[in-house]
């Protein structure tokens, strides 16, 4: 109960800080809109159907960039500048603290995604082939998968020097190999196989399934299972790697467990994932 009170208060404080910071507002609201308009006109010529086809990739980019560069960075920063240290001498639990970052990130991300969706709908007249509620559910699954990964980076990175290195290492493969930035079917076969190791690929696949192919939850079972597994394992590993202070060493054994778990996620994804339907080029029927 009290843990919940602490989380709620911290989430609210984080919300107020975000709303009051021009930089934070830009990255969470203006940038996603900017990205959408850029994508829509450059790659989609502003046409409703082509923009709809681009949306899954765009949403995925928004999810991964926001998860990795949003909270993970502010976590590292607050740990480095001693804000966490002050919390440490209060009864606040690590879980309550990390949860507040997660909740705030979920809220920010969901509003960014919906904002992009609303603009695509009203400005470009794009429509989703599948029902909106399935679309929102898939967005939530995606957020659930990636926010813990962002938190993980925030826990592992030692300071503001190593954090961007780590995030970029994860971000760029996910952005370019997952089919988010480049249509998946144009990627060579061996790249597609590597892409199956990345959770982002399954988010693009699931979103495309709803928006482009009009698939329901059952047909999207495979990718959704991968996303949920990623989220659950990400959360579990987070509790192993939390640090109050950047001077505290990470326990090697915990780091190994974390790496093992992440490897497991991808291996599972690699073996059980169904063939990705987005690997087939649209025939234009």
């Amino acid at each position, binding site marked *: 109960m*009290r843990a919940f*009170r*602490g989380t*709620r*208060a*911290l989430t*609210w*404080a984080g919300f*107020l*800080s975000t709303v*009051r*910071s021009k930089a934070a507002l830009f990255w969470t609201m203006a940038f996603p809109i900017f990205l959408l308009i850029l994508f829509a006109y450059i790659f989609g010529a502003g046409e409703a159907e082509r923009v709809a086809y681009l949306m899954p990739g765009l949403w995925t980019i928004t999810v991964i960039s926001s998860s990795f560069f949003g909270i993970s960075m502010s976590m590292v920063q*607050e740990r480095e*500048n*001693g*804000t966490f*240290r*002050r*919390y*440490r*001498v*209060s*009864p*606040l*639990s690590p879980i309550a603290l990390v949860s507040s970052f997660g909740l705030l990130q979920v809220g920010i991300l969901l509003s960014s995604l919906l904002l992009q969706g609303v603009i695509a709908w009203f400005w470009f007249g794009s429509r989703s082939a599948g029902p909106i509620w399935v679309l929102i559910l898939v967005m939530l699954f995606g957020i659930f998968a990636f926010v813990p990964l962002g938190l993980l980076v925030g826990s592992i990175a030692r300071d503001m020097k190593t954090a961007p290195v780590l995030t970029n290492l994860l971000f760029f493969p996910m952005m370019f190999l997952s089919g988010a930035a480049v249509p998946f079917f144009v990627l060579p076969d061996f790249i597609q196989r590597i892409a199956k190791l990345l959770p982002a690929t399954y988010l693009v696949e699931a979103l495309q399934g709803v928006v482009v192919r009009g698939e329901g939850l059952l047909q999207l079972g495979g990718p959704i299972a991968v996303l949920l597994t990623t989220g659950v394992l990400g959360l579990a590993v987070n509790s192993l790697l939390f640090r109050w202070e950047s001077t505290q060493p990470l326990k090697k054994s915990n780091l190994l467990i974390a790496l093992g778990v992440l490897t497991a996620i991808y291996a599972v994804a690699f073996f059980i994932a169904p063939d990705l339907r987005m690997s087939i080029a649209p025939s234009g029927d």
Partner: protein
Amino acid sequence: MSSPIAEIRDLTKDYGTVQALRGVSLSIESGGIVGILGPNGAGKTTLVETIEGLRTPSQGRVSVLGIDPSREPRRLAERLGVQLQATELPPDLTVLETLRLFRAFYEKSLPANEVLAAIDLTEKSNARNRTLSGGQKQRLAIGLALVTDPELIILDEPTTGLDPAARRDLHKIIRSLKERGRTVLLTTHYIEEAEILCDRVVVMREGKVVADGSPFELLQRAQGGSTVWIRVDKELDPVGLFRAGAQPTGREDDYYRFTTEDPAAFVVALGRTLQEGNLTLLDLRMKRPTLEDVYLELVGTRSEDGDGEGS
């Protein structure tokens, strides 16, 4: 009242090859202000952070409010108020929002406006933290230590880096905590601060306690004599004073100057001398050793050979 609020036994703390604490024992009774005084690198911060549960002892025992801080830091935190040497406040929150945030962490807490009044920041309650002055920030940092109305309040160098007026404001706030029956443990490297603020001063040097007592008691330990200046209306025959142990150290203007280890005996002898010589005492001045003299004797030097302790 009888059992101590904090009990430290033979505490040592090593950082690799550096020994920050080398066997500290300390018992802190409830009520009053206890100051830990020492130069940078003396181990003050390590000591208070071990009491707060931020650091684990290498050896020895620590018990605070009956709790082992390294075992149950969160249970202790519920009853402990802490101001760290550096407190980073969320820059875009207001003073009031910051207090409310911290209130949410505790089982029981004081109303925010009561805390604001205690730290004299009521007028600033809607100001963003980034706009506060150094003194105001520090008052808020102390306010965060007070939200749960703790029995023990630990302040790590609360006045370092503040201007004299801000420092005086903080002293007032710290005294008011004592008046409300709280126990305050603070670290400082300002001797004057320890002297005017603290009921008990613990002097540390190189990870050890080298003196412990009220400022008055510490003064008693002063070695080296008092200097006495006297002015009389006629020529003085100092033999009686010499017999009482006084040393002549020359004349200054119309004054005779002596040093003495025993000011009481000096005054008695002076009375007799005056009576015998039929002299009138026009003026008497005495300079006793200050706490600063005692402190410098104890820690050897006032120079800061900081080893990066704390921060």
